[in-house]
């Protein structure tokens, strides 16, 4: 196995994201498995931003812990990241920008002083060209063949070809050759291993999944870390024939999505916790009117505005409790980009089959990190059928007919003879209100209970129809991790580290957090020697849910709420403590 981690850091506005995109894509084009972490702050200029791309010939599932190559655009970057460099690593910097004394370097870390500004000036007075020069040097140290870097760089300029693209490619080439000449042998460098792999963020995978599932209407209000779903769908709206609407607020967003769905198209909206809080009443209305709806909740650190560009899994309780009263819902929690695609497709299917809101829970770490996926991990579902399935039947149409499954035949506006009212008030089988003059009248009291029972039967359907908890790894292990969502990635990587230390672990993963398939989960949890619940929130929200639904307590917990994603190293450390000391 060959593996490398490369970091690039500077101030917001320095163009770190572009450098990271090009390095990450170049690595995926070498056929390597890639995981790229985008760390930025809620500022447009200044602050400290960095990008880490980790690439390996074997599957990887997280950004890892240490770095092998660091391209520092300012001194702050060097100071922050040097302590986390691997032995034998190299830092790329420009002495014209800041000094770096040998004494500042950790033992075993080399420095490569690249005249990035000087190279840039050869082409233009645009200081941004220093990035291309430094990127070229970095790419050499990483092992990226220059033709791949050149092509990726050219592609990144797209239609803006011409002088600017040429200058960047020229500067990158000069930086590359400079490193070739002045750096020593680099034992960390990776080599191309196969054809290019798909590289995408969790959000792109969600947007793609929505398009694949037949989404025709998408509404959103900008909110990190969900905004890039809006950006991708808006950019592809005309090509794919999807109506994409930025609305005045998230209340309008969810109500528009419900209106579109009621009128007969597959419909989705996405937001983060703050926007989801505004959508809550609308989500309940989708439950009450039995209107299919897919809502993506990409969590960030709360409470309130919290840390807008940092990750957390702290909104599970809100998703579980969103809305007054009880209504059926499901919460899917994908762990990586491929699964985010499939979970979104699945969410559309569940929403349509069960006529109720389905939530896809993502978080900053999944939504904004880039990762490679295999083509078969993102299968496009076959032709998507029209929703006009109910046939006119002579005036006896019951939109909310009592059925065994709880699902009633759904007509769409425009179909003759099937006119009905969808109501947020309690109603009878025909959709007629029983909330005003009929409420409290004995026969309608019974009707209300019957209608609740009908709707809630769908929850049992969802429990069986959704993805069930699974066990990854050997059946008999010293320690069983329990996790949901993006934290699964770091755990998967930690299992390799632990195995190397002689500790066998496995993982119970919960891809549908609610409703929980307890008949599957209870046996999985009862065949463990010791468990470790890993969640990115303060209170262990999944742990509480599991205890409430199964009676199984998970006493050992690794909870993180500092905004940063879990790393394999810290999970390994915690697992070793738990196994050796029992706490």
């Amino acid at each position, binding site marked *: 196995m060959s593996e490398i981690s490369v970091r690039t850091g500077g101030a917001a506005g320095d163009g770190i994201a572009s450098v990271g995109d090009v390095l990450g894509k170049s690595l995926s*084009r070498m056929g390597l498995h890639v995981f790229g972490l985008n760390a930025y702050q809620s500022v447009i200029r200044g602050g400290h931003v960095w990008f880490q791309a980790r690439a390996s010939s074997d599957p990887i599932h997280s950004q890892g812990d240490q770095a092998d190559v660091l391209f520092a655009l300012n001194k702050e970057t060097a100071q922050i990241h040097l302590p986390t460099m691997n032995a034998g690593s190299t830092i790329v910097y420009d002495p014209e920008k800041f000094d770096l004394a040998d004494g500042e370097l950790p033992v075993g870390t080399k420095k490569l002083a690249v005249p990035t500004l000087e190279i840039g000036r050869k082409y233009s007075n645009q200081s941004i060209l220093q990035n291309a020069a430094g990127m070229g040097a970095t790419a050499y140290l990483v092992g990226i063949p220059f033709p791949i870097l050149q092509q990726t760089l050219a592609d990144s300029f797209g239609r803006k070809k011409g002088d600017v693209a040429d200058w960047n490619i020229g500067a990158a080439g000069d930086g590359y050759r400079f490193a070739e000449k002045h750096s020593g042998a680099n034992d960390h460098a990776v080599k191309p291993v196969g054809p*290019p792999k*798909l*590289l*995408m963020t969790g959000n792109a995978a969600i947007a*793609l999944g929505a398009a*694949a599932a*037949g*989404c*025709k*209407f998408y509404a959103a209000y900008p909110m990190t870390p969900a905004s890039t779903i809006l950006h991708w769908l808006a950019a*592809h*709206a*005309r090509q*794919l*024939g999807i*109506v994409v*609407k930025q*609305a*005045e*607020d998230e*209340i*309008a967003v969810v*109500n*528009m*999505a*419900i*209106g*579109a*769905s*009621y*009128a007969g*198209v597959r*419909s989705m909206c996405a937001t983060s916790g703050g926007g989801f809080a505004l959508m809550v*009443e*609308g989500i309940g*209305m989708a439950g009450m*009117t039995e209107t299919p709806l897919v809502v993506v909740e990409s969590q960030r650190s709360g409470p309130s505005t919290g840390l807008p560009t940092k990750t957390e899994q702290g909104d599970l309780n809100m998703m579980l409790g969103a809305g007054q009263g009880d209504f059926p819902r499901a919460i899917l929690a994908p762990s990586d980009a491929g699964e985010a695609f499939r979970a979104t497709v699945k969410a559309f299917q569940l929403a349509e089959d069960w006529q109720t809101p389905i939530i896809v829970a993502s978080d900053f770490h999944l939504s904004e990190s880039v990762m490679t996926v295999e083509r078969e991990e993102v299968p*496009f*579902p*076959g*032709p*998507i059928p*029209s*929703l006009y399935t109910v046939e*006119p039947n002579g005036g006896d149409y019951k939109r909310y007919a009592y059925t065994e499954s709880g699902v009633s035949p759904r007509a*769409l*506006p*425009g*179909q*003759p*003879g099937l*006119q009905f*009212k*969808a*109501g*947020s008030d309690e109603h009878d089988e025909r959709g*007629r*209100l029983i909330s005003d*003059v009929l409420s409290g009248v004995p026969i309608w009291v019974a009707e209300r209970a019957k209608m609740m029972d009908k709707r809630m039967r769908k929850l049992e359907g969802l429990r069986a129809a959704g993805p069930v908890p699974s066990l990854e790894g050997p059946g008999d292990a010293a320690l069983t991790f329990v996790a949901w969502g993006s934290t699964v990635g770091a755990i998967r990587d930690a299992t390799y580290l632990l195995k190397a230390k002689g500790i066998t672990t496995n993982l119970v993963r919960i891809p549908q957090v609610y409703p929980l398939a307890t008949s599957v989960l209870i046996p999985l949890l009862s065949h463990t020697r010791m468990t470790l619940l890993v969640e990115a929130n303060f209170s262990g929200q999944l742990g509480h849910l599991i205890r409430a639904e199964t009676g199984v307590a998970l006493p050992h917990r690794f909870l993180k709420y500092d905004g940063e994603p879990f790393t394999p190293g810290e999970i390994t450390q915690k697992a070793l403590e738990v196994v050796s000391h029992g706490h």
Partner: protein
Amino acid sequence: MATSAVPASGTTPLPVLVSKSDIKPTWCPGCGDFGVIAALEMALKRLKIPPHETVIVSGIGCSSNLPHFLNTYGFHGIHGRSLPVAEGIRWANHGLNVIVTGGDGDGFGIGAGHFVHAMRRNVKLTYVTMDNEIYGLTTGQASPTSTMGAKTKSTPAGVIEHPINPIALAIASGATYVARGFSGEVKQMADLIAGALQHNGFAFVDAFSPCVTYNKLNTFDWFRQRVYKLESTDHDPSDISKAFTRAQEWGDKLPIGLFYKADRPTYEDLEEVLQAGPAVQQPCGLVGRESVLDEFL
């Protein structure tokens, strides 16, 4: 209607006119809303708009129960959110006639933000508000259009906020058909609503619809003594300045009729995706569109 509301099927249904449903209105005897529903029904019948191609959307309040009382499709949503639901319906299927009904609290209080944005988009909707200057269903609190000084359960010392001027707000926000009706003038209101239904853009009809139970100030008699019809004056609805001036009239003289009308492309006219027809009838999914993955390679 240029576009069909449903995909073509083998059967051609008999034309059926909009009429009352089998649900009796739950409004108090003498409620102004009876005049509004009568005018709406007349307008829909006159234009022979088929009930199955019509959706009436509402929020919450006495007047928001209206969709149940006609034989069209209906969506009776949550308080203040009728317009976004209606916009979503239009963008999914702009072959449908979409009408929004509700009260002054629903539309100008909790729903005020959506009101402004729907108008600036010029979505093709007919929005009829039953404006009674009071919260009726919650038993008589001040509303955004309650008169200064009005004593209600929530303002026992009298309202100390200036009322919203829905007509002026609509003109300022970009609505392209702005009218005011009165439940005591059903024939005129039917004409105004018919004009709204035929208008290609956001059509707003604010209807004085007295609450006979909780508003003892703005009664039928109070309105009758004050209303006058714009069509019997020299008012020119294409003149936005004159429309604004008329909208400022409040007190002894209250104009009813068409204040303002303009031609501006609708949101649906400008949304490129909808030029291929209603979204419900367009193909979907990614089968055969493998090239969408190229950018990720």
